[in-house]
């Protein structure tokens, strides 16, 4: 009755050379997410309790296999379909059946952006696995760490390949929980515990919006689906159906009670709330900086390269639906632009190397978001640019985190003011970090330059000059704060004893750095617009000088200011800080958002909702029950006085009763 897990096809005895060809991989694309899942189960249940080392090895091998498959798939997919990259669903099965014509399936969707993300996720994940073998060496939870990493990789891949919104939601939550587990990896540390709870609860709150959005889409998808009959594509929850013009045309007509507000806007803003939670958009950004409590490889994989882009991916995946509502797109663009600026400003003031990178991630995610927000179905340059930036950002940001991890590993300290002079002691780390810093600052020919350029171009030519200006400003700020940490960390003299004794990281950690550095250089040259686009394939454009020049100037200016303030003695910087006074303090304290949230939850929700309910239950509702019991008991106590214990009194009552009854019977029958 239930479709099995095995897909169709004769995967029996095939010659080895066929195993790795495109056709085979495409047919068995489900293997890409399934391998980490299987490895998660096996490592978690059987290997981890016995041998930590072996668990690391098996977990890494499984992700490596996935990565190989993903690369083969990508190579074949982008090469094979020249005329247009069709969305394929090579495998799916019914998973959850709600009623006739309404079910959620699990499946694998192969289309340009999912293939792109598969490559990014498996590659970065594999490199991080490899790196972690060195980084986590000797940790008590070595096996546990790899188990969680595998779980995360599976969930993220499941999210990426989701052909319908329910699978997306399912993996979305799984990604959230693996993030929770990994942030709280050092579970004995109170700050890590607080951070993991915060991350989960904030994203969960955002997911509430996503959930309601899914309900709305599910309902209207279903009701228009039955109406649409045979012309509909797929099932009501499928993206193919939800983004189809036939559905959107009807759905965008549905009104809410409020004039000027269509239901599609409400639904998409709710879905965007989920996306904003995962991608840590303002005002749900507060969890990401704290998430740096997790081990550094985790920050690299989850909180920089992959999970946090899930929100961007969701918006891209449902882009035609967003595009059907102008207001929803405005929200996406506005929130994205604001976050990118907001986070960049805060990033300039932080001293913890990982926190700076976290704010930089926020800022870059904002970039990707507003790139989506400024494009439309017809003018989809921003869509391409956003995915392009997602692609390059994954590599250079992972590299930055892994480099920071190598530094932290060597110095045992997160504070940049305790580092310094590491360039000579850690040459490979320094070189790769420099490449990444150049890349994120948007300097030609590094990857960041190309993608940032496209985003800015999309904003400018999409008719959003304010957003373009913001983007330009953010580009400068990004260059400034990244070079700030670069100069402080690697230049000058060692500022504490541990930094003086720092050593280069082991080879197993350096290999991923080098690979990622190479990717950060070359990924910019990928002819991205050939592969990922919406609608018609756009004409090939070279570098747009009108955007590239100001962008580069902004970047160079940022670098120059950073050099001026931090490369030499720090006196200039502290003088500036002193002059900024109060506003610097507000920025450094992240505009007190954490405090506001804590106030709202602890002082408002807990004190004015939860505590009164608990009290009400104990005293009023339960009091009501006890009151009933008391009434019963009291009436019993009163009636008790009728029981004299004197047989003769009872006898008298009895006789009176008998006489009375006799009298009644007499009256009735006589």
């Amino acid at each position: 009755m239930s479709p099995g897990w095995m897909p169709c096809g004769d995967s029996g005895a095939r010659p080895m050379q066929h195993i790795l060809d495109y056709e085979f991989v495409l047919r068995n694309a489900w293997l890409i997410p399934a391998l980490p899942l299987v490895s998660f189960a096996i490592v978690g249940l059987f290997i981890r309790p016995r041998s930590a080392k072996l668990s690391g090895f098996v977990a890494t091998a499984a992700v490596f296999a996935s990565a190989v498959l993903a690369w083969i798939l990508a190579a074949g997919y982008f090469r094979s379909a020249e005329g247009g990259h069709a969305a394929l669903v090579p495998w799916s099965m019914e998973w959850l059946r709600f009623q006739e014509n309404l079910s959620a399936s699990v499946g694998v969707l192969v289309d340009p952006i999912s293939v792109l993300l598969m490559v990014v996720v498996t590659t970065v994940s594999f490199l991080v696995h490899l790196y972690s073998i060195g980084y986590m060496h000797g940790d008590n939870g070595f096996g546990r760490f790899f188990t969680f990493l595998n779980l995360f990789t599976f969930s993220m891949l499941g999210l990426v390949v989701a052909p319908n919104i329910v699978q997306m939601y399912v993996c979305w939550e799984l990604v959230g929980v693996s993030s929770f587990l990994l942030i709280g990896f050092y579970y004995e540390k109170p700050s890590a515990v607080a951070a993991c709870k915060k991350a989960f609860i904030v994203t969960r709150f955002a997911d509430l919006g996503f959930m309601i959005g899914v309900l709305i889409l599910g309902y209207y998808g279903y009701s228009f689906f039955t109406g649409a009959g045979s012309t509909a594509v797929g099932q009501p929850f499928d993206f193919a159906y939800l983004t189809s013009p036939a559905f959107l045309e009807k759905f965008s007509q549905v009104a809410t009670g409020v004039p000027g507000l269509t239901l599609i806007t409400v639904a998409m803003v709710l879905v965007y709330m989920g996306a904003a939670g995962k991608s840590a958009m303002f005002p749900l950004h507060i969890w990401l900086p704290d998430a740096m409590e997790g081990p550094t490889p985790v920050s690299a994989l989850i909180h920089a390269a992959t999970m946090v882009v899930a929100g961007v991916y969701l918006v891209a995946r449902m882009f035609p639906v967003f595009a059907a509502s102008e207001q929803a797109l405005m929200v996406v663009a506005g929130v994205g632009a604001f976050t990118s600026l907001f986070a960049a400003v805060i990033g300039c003031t932080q001293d913890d190397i990982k926190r700076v990178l976290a704010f930089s991630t926020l800022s870059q995610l904002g970039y990707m978001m507003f790139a989506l927000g400024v494009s439309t179905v017809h003018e989809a340059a921003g869509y391409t640019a956003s995915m392009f930036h997602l692609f390059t950002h994954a590599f250079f940001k992972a590299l930055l985190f892994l480099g920071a991890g190598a530094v932290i590993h060597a110095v045992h300290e997160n504070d940049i003011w305790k580092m310094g002079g590491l360039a000579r002691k850690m040459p490979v780390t320094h070189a790769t970090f420099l490449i990444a810093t150049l890349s994120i600052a948007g300097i030609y020919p590094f990857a960041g330059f190309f993608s940032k350029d496209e985003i800015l171009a999309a904003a400018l030519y999409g008719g959003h000059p304010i957003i373009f200006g913001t983007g330009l400003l953010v580009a400068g700020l990004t260059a400034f704060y990244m070079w700030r940490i670069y100069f402080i960390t690697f230049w000058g003299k060692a500022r504490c004893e541990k930094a003086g004794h720092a050593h280069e990281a082991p080879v197993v950690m350096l290999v991923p750095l080098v690979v990622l550095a190479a990717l950060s250089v070359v990924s910019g040259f990928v002819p991205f617009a050939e592969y990922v686009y919406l609608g018609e394939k756009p004409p090939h454009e070279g570098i747009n000088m009108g955007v590239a020049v100001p962008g580069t100037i902004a970047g160079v200016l940022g670098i120059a200011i950073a050099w001026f303030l931090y490369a030499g003695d720090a006196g200039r910087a502290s003088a500036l800080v002193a002059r900024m006074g109060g506003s610097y303090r507000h920025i450094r304290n992240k505009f007190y958002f954490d405090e506001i949230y804590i106030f709202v939850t602890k002082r408002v929700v807990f004190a004015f909702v939860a505590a009164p309910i608990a009290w009400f239950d104990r005293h009023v509702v339960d009091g009501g029950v006890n009151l009933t019991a008391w009434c019963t008991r009291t009436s019993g106590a009163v009636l008790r006085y009728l029981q004299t214990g004197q047989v003769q009194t009872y006898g008298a009552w009895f006789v009176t009763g008998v006489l009375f009854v006799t009298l009644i019977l007499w009256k009735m029958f006589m």
Partner: protein
Amino acid sequence: MIEFLASYEPGVVTWLMLPAVLFAIGIYGLLTRRNAVGILISAELAINSAAMNFVIFNRFITPAKVDGQVMSLFIIAAAAAEVVVGVAIFVMLFKHRRTMDVTRMDAMRR
């Protein structure tokens, strides 16, 4: 007068008067006596009035059978047994509490 008495056939109502009076006396005693033995005797009166009723009804309703008389014998036996048990209890109580006053026997209430 003699003739009247000789020919007088008392009806069932006349006969029933005696048990009725007996029963009333029994109930009155049952409710008012304070001595337990007195109560027991009163109860005997009431029971015997019932036995007498059986005999009377047997005579007037089914004269051919003796069911009622048999029943009265049962009642006499049961009453005797009851007296045995009751007096035994009272003896024990008297030993225990040195009184036969039922108004003071209210242990159940406490």
